[in-house]
């Protein structure tokens, strides 16, 4: 069983072959699936824990304070303590709320990121599913999440929640367009929707550099639109605590609230991962054309590390937004999308097509 930190495909294939040989193909497949599921669940839990901690520390950095410091070394166990607290909290429910939908909503919100995360290529060969419709699939499943938010707001039987849900519904549905179109801009360049192919196509350089102006515009639009789609500041109208208390999850407590919280962070990770994969070459090390020694030197750093470095950089950017900007108003936000981002985006796709047709890229 060959194991290399640079390429996981052999390792994964070997495990797969081993499972199928040891058991029958059907059972082997099921065991394989179970292993993948457990890995992802563990990863999501770890992701939630660490992102909450990182967010606190980054926030503290911007606010010139230390952040959590008491529980564990440098407060590292703070989120664990918080999770324990959330688990033991009483699950409250408002009078006359629709209990079935109220309990269902957090799970629907969770489904979308869990389905999307399976397509992310963490390193070469380290990808659970590799559909040829890759990006389209991610976009498709992430559109389910909004249903959960709408249900949560409606079934809470609280006017603040309802307003929050309406806001977030309008917001997510409109910004989804911009996210898709900005991703399509790069798809035009790479010629494929399949994530592994897109990563592979960036062997000679990341698209953000090779696609120059239209790619940079697309990246800016992507970052703005996906921040909005994940309901994070400065687009956190749906949970604007100073206006509508906590928006759609006002009435949630305990572990159900934790689900919404977790979904937000996993979503943030997916945005960062998709952004890194499409624009910054995913796990692909920094390559410049055919300069051999430079490329070889860069190849020494394992792809997983590259991937997580890029993802962290984008996550840091998203957190930076949240902790510096004031919140937009709902109508301003919709104006931004429909009047500025969307036309700009369509124009940008045309520009990119022109660039591709004339071969005016690196």
């Amino acid at each position, binding site marked *: 069983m060959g194991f290399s930190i640079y390429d996981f495909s052999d390792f994964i294939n070997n495990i797969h072959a081993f499972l199928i040989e040891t058991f029958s193909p059907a059972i082997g497949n099921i065991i394989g699936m179970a292993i993948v599921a457990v890995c992802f669940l563990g990863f999501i839990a770890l992701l939630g824990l660490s992102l909450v901690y990182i967010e606190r520390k980054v926030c503290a950095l911007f606010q*010139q304070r230390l952040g959590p410091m008491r529980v564990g070394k440098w407060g590292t166990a703070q989120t664990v303590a918080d999770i324990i607290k959330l688990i033991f909290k009483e699950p409250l429910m408002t009078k006359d709320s629709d209990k079935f939908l109220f309990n269902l909503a957090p799970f629907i919100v969770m489904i979308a990121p869990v389905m999307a995360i399976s397509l992310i290529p963490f390193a070469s060969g380290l990808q659970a599913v590799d559909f040829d419709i890759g990006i389209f699939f991610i976009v498709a499943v992430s559109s389910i999440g909004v249903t959960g938010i709408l249900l949560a707001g409606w079934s809470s039987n609280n006017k603040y929640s309802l307003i929050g849900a309406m806001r977030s519904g309008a917001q997510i549905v409109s910004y989804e367009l911009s996210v898709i179109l900005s991703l399509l801009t790069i798809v035009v360049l790479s010629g494929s929707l399949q994530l592994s192919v897109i990563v592979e196509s960036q062997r000679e350089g990341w698209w953000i550099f090779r696609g120059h102006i239209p790619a940079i515009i697309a990246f800016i639009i992507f970052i703005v639109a996906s921040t909005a789609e994940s309901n994070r500041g400065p687009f956190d109208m749906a949970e604007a605590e100073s*206006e509508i208390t906590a928006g759609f999850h006002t009435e949630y407590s305990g572990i159900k609230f934790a689900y919404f919280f977790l979904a937000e962070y996993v979503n943030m990770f997916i945005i960062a991962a998709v952004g890194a994969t499409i624009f910054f070459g995913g796990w692909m090390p920094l390559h410049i054309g055919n300069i051999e020694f430079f490329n070889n030197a860069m190849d020494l750093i394992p792809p997983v590390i590259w991937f997580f470095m890029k993802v962290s950089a984008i996550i840091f950017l998203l957190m930076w937004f949240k*902790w*510096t900007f*004031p*919140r*937009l*108003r709902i109508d301003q936000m919709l104006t931004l999308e429909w009047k500025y981002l969307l036309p700009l985006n369509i124009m940008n796709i045309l520009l990119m097509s022109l660039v591709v047709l004339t071969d005016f890229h690196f």
Partner: protein
Amino acid sequence: MEEVAQNIETQEYFINMGPQHPSTHGVLRLMLTLDGEIIKKVQPHLGYIHRSIEKMCEKDSYQQVVHLTDRMDYLGCHINNEAVCLTVEKGLELEVPDRVKVIRTIISELTRLSSHQLWWGVMGMDLGAITTFLYGFRDREMITDIFEETCGARLTMNYNVPGGLMFDIHPNFQNRTKQFLEHFKKKLPEYDKLLTGNVIFTERTKGIGYLSKEDAISYGVTGPSARASGFSCDVRKKNPYSAYDRVDFKEILFTEGDCFARYQARIAEMWESMKIIEQLIDNIPEGEYKAKTKAVIKLPPGEYYQRVETPRGELGVYIISDNKKNPYRVKFRSPGFSNLSALDKMARGFKIADLVAIMSTLDLVIPDIDR
């Protein structure tokens, strides 16, 4: 088809904002009549922390009355104290020493600074920029430290007594105040960088919550909120008290009357406050820190009215005395109460998110409204 679209009436609905709501900054309840997210009507409901301070004053001696005023506008407590002391001194026809006047003015301005810092932080937070909150508190901390060293308390200071001050300033006072000024002069431009120049912020505040000068006067809106509409109402200029007649400062006036003007007015006021402190801090006259008063103060029968400029506007203290050791009637004309009355006028036609911006530029302190 068109006629149908015109005749469709959307259903208005009520929503209770408060008494427990993050952006009412206390227990204020607003009953909103909404059409979608557009505000049709705002009805404030007050009294959740009404303690009837005015009634309590009728049973207290004049020294005790001073203590109660701390609990009104707790962010401008020193100025509230000063208002009562000035009224009593007016009644006694007592001339306080120069030193007292200067120290009172310096601490008043420090109080104004600290109140505006807190307002700035909270304003940012109301608009979703949580970082400002901590910036505001970080700088405010230095002022409360100075207060703590001076009189032992950080929030409800009670430094004033009728006739002067409770005790003399700490020897460190001048140094620390100068240190603070130096520090804050660097930090205030940072405030501008973080919020004032931000596109989102200006979009959220410009043209929002317009209040005309006539309305400001008619509703009795005072303080920076009114000066942003062009109503020149700075008591420090109109009826100078303490040492305000000997310092040079500008009355900040804007004409736009929107949230952004109110925001700018307060930021500009912070610069003016620093200017005032700078002029006085090195020139604190020597002398007594307290004029001689009798242990039991009895005001000659009559009516005394004193106005002061708190961070929120004009505070009026109206004392009617019938020659007893406690006042016959005390009325506090609190700035927040009148400012709040204009909220409905300002908020109609705007959205919930704008209401939050309007409320934070009015800088309401609920105990000041409820008394």
